[in-house]
């Protein structure tokens, strides 16, 4: 009786102690948070808007970043993620209604950088950057910074990432081994030389039960970079070796005809499906194991590991196009300061932190150490999900968009096979040939009508040629005729005028 009683009271005691402990713990953290909030209260709060899904645990990361910033630049941060599907509409309205915010993600492909500059939604920060963000400013060459310059000033910070995107073929490692063409594949230097490999792969595919075709599509072969051009705007290109920067119409060049004939012959040989539209997105078809190759895709350091995680099979790749630094590739990811922001200087200081301080940057990208991630190997900068979470997605904070926030070369590796990819990529960026028109951006305002009608012609005539679905012998002249009728000559002349002006101003 007494024994039972004492055991019960003992258990009760444990329960009480645990409850008290829990109380005091939560009480403490509550007090700590309140104190932190009080400390932050008087500091200016920067609002940073970017596309992405809501992360369940964003508050923890926001607090950690604010604490870090409060000590260094005397400001705090509010992270505002807007769903991808709504981002462009919402940020457009926020800008148009002059709603207050400080920083936003901008690019030519979403929240359009150039129209933002045009509408004066973004603040000029060309003078502030070298002054308030010296490390960030020094981390890229002056030519690179030129790419973000619009009409004399810089309106956004560039996120350093894989600027140089040479195209080349990817092939499944098992197929490559089976046809015994590894040496030929690694020695490839032009697309013409690929034909024998493709023929061998085709034979393999025909004898395989799962594989249906050599490749899913062929049209990426026809990107201008593959043929040594900088695609300044649509079909208007400049040869990468042409210092005088003559604007050419891509479809009128010999390279275009050569490429079109190659693509046509490969489609006729049955290397790609005649009706790719019904197959869904390329990734799903790859994951389903229907294709042995991608004839032309972006080849980059760590690209094979990334491809393997997307498609589920080990792959080999080989860059064919010459690495070229173009305006488009540099300005693909930017962060601008709002023109209504009352804290321009602080916003630029935030850009300095996020682009040059790996601890700060990785907190934003990967979350808080010990809460969302832990070191797997600190020397190699390799991290793993914190605690017993199976993947980063289960930790409550994994936006997985490092390239959106800042310099990706500072980001920690999440996959052992990726280790070492960033220094290689940085070297590739530095070694790339700058396009003769790097930093030039085309102002379409004077030829708006022509641009619209040319776009319609491209959809109708050029896309079939790119995919190999039309005979180049008749289709290319028809395309060029239609382009001329749509006014591509006027666009070319206008662009040439702007390029010449730009070159003269630069000299």
């Amino acid at each position, binding site marked *: 009786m007494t024994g039972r009683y004492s055991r019960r009271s003992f258990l009760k005691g444990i329960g009480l102690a645990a409850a008290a402990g829990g109380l005091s713990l939560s009480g403490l953290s509550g007090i700590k948070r309140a104190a932190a909030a009080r400390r932050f209260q008087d500091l200016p709060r920067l609002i940073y808007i970017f596309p992405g899904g809501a992360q369940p645990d964003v508050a923890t990361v926001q607090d950690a970043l604010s604490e870090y910033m409060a000590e260094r630049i005397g400001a705090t941060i509010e992270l505002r993620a807007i*769903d991808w599907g709504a981002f462009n509409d919402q940020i457009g309205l926020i800008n148009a209604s002059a709603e207050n915010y400080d920083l936003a993600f901008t690019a030519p492909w979403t929240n359009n950088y150039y129209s933002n500059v045009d509408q004066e939604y973004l603040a000029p920060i060309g003078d502030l950057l070298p002054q308030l963000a010296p490390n960030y400013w020094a981390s890229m060459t002056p030519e690179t910074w030129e790419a973000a310059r619009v009409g004399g000033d810089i309106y956004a910070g560039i996120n350093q990432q894989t600027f140089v995107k040479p195209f080349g073929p990817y092939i499944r490692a098992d197929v490559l081994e089976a046809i015994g063409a590894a040496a030929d594949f690694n020695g490839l230097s032009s697309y013409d030389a690929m034909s024998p490999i493709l023929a061998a792969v085709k034979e393999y595919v025909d004898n395989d039960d799962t594989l249906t075709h050599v490749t899913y599509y062929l049209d990426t072969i026809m990107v201008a970079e593959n043929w040594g051009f900088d695609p300044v705007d649509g079909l208007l290109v400049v040869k990468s070796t042409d210092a005088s920067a003559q604007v050419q119409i891509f479809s009128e060049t010999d390279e275009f005809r050569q490429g079109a004939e190659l693509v046509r012959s490969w489609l006729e040989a049955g290397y790609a499906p005649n009706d790719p539209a*019904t197959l*869904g997105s390329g*990734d799903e078809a790859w994951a389903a194991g*229907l294709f042995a190759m991608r004839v032309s895709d972006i080849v980059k350091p760590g690209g094979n590991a990334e491809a393997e995680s997307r498609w589920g099979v080990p792959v080999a790749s080989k860059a064919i196009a010459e690495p070229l630094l173009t305006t488009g590739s540099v300005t693909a990811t930017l962060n601008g300061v709002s023109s209504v922001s009352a804290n321009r200087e602080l916003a630029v200081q935030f850009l300095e932190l996020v682009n040059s301080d790996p601890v700060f940057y990785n907190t934003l990208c990967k979350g808080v150490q010990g809460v969302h991630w832990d070191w797997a190997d600190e020397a190699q900068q390799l991290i793993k999900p914190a605690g017993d979470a199976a993947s980063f*997605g289960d930790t409550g904070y994994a936006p997985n968009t490092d*390239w959106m926030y800042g310099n990706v070369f500072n980001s920690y590796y999440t996959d052992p096979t990726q280790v070492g990819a960033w220094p290689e990529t940085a070297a590739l960026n530095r070694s790339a040939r700058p396009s003769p028109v790097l930093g030039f951006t085309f102002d379409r305002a004077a030829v708006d009508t022509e641009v619209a009608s040319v776009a319609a012609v491209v959809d109708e005539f050029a896309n079939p040629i790119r995919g190999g679905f039309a005979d180049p012998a008749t289709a290319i002249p028809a395309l060029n005729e239609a382009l001329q009728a749509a006014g591509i000559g006027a666009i070319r002349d206008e662009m040439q005028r702007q390029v010449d002006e730009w070159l003269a101003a630069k000299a």
Partner: protein
Amino acid sequence: MTTYTQTIRAQKREDTDRLMNLIGRISVHLTLTILALCCLVPLLMILSASFTDEIALTRNGYTLIPSEFSTAAYELIFRSPTAILRAYAVTIFTTVVGTIIALTLMSMLAYVLSRPDFVFRKPLSFFVFFTMLFNGGIVPYYILMTQYLRVQDTVFALLLPYFVVGFYVLILRTYFAGLPEELLDAARVDGASEWRIFWSVAIPLAKPALATIALFTALNYWNDWTTPLYFIRNADLYPLQYLLYIIQSNAQAMQIQSSVGMNLGEVPTQTARMAMAILATGPAAVFFLFFQRYLIRGVTLGAFK
């Protein structure tokens, strides 16, 4: 003799009439069948795709009967069904509450506008009519909602925009104006107040018009995805249609991403997207089939009074 030929002729005429009638009926049925198929087949395709194995779908494309039956997509979604359930709750709430409030406001406004003895009838009618022709555009609308009313990221942002729709007010006003003035006078003689007349005489008589407007308003709320696109950032307040839109457009955004060489988290697979569409629209479609006759009865109710 004449009568005989006459009957023969009449008979013949009747036959051709019947034949024409038959042809007419067949052609009408045929057209309607084709139209119905145009609506049904895509829905069935989605249903079938949602039950197809992911790899089989990529390999064989969309078919009316699943090429390889699988419930993997639904299992994936029901592992965390909160988003869809929440979206259902939000949509049902805005549809029910919004329709009730909107109907109350619009019928009161319309009734007042229909009364010839109301002093400001003309200017107020013009005010309502004017908004049908002209509006400030999206940016002033956004500024009003976010900087003056400050309803962004609240459920009010979803409710407010359809409270008073000019066109519906005018329909109701016309209906109220058509009610016999004598009825209202009789009520007045009996000592009824204005409130009493409105609630006990005008409203019951206007049931057919109210039912129609209620249906339109409910559909507006149910199908609305642009309002949340502008004003809602909190994922807990996503209505159903918007959730679907977000899922689809996130997948599209990923395609833009990969074309500029970036990768973007995880996106539901094709079959999961189809399953999501079925879960979002399916129950609503079934409800509609079930309630359709009540709705139609509601619309025609009182028409013979």
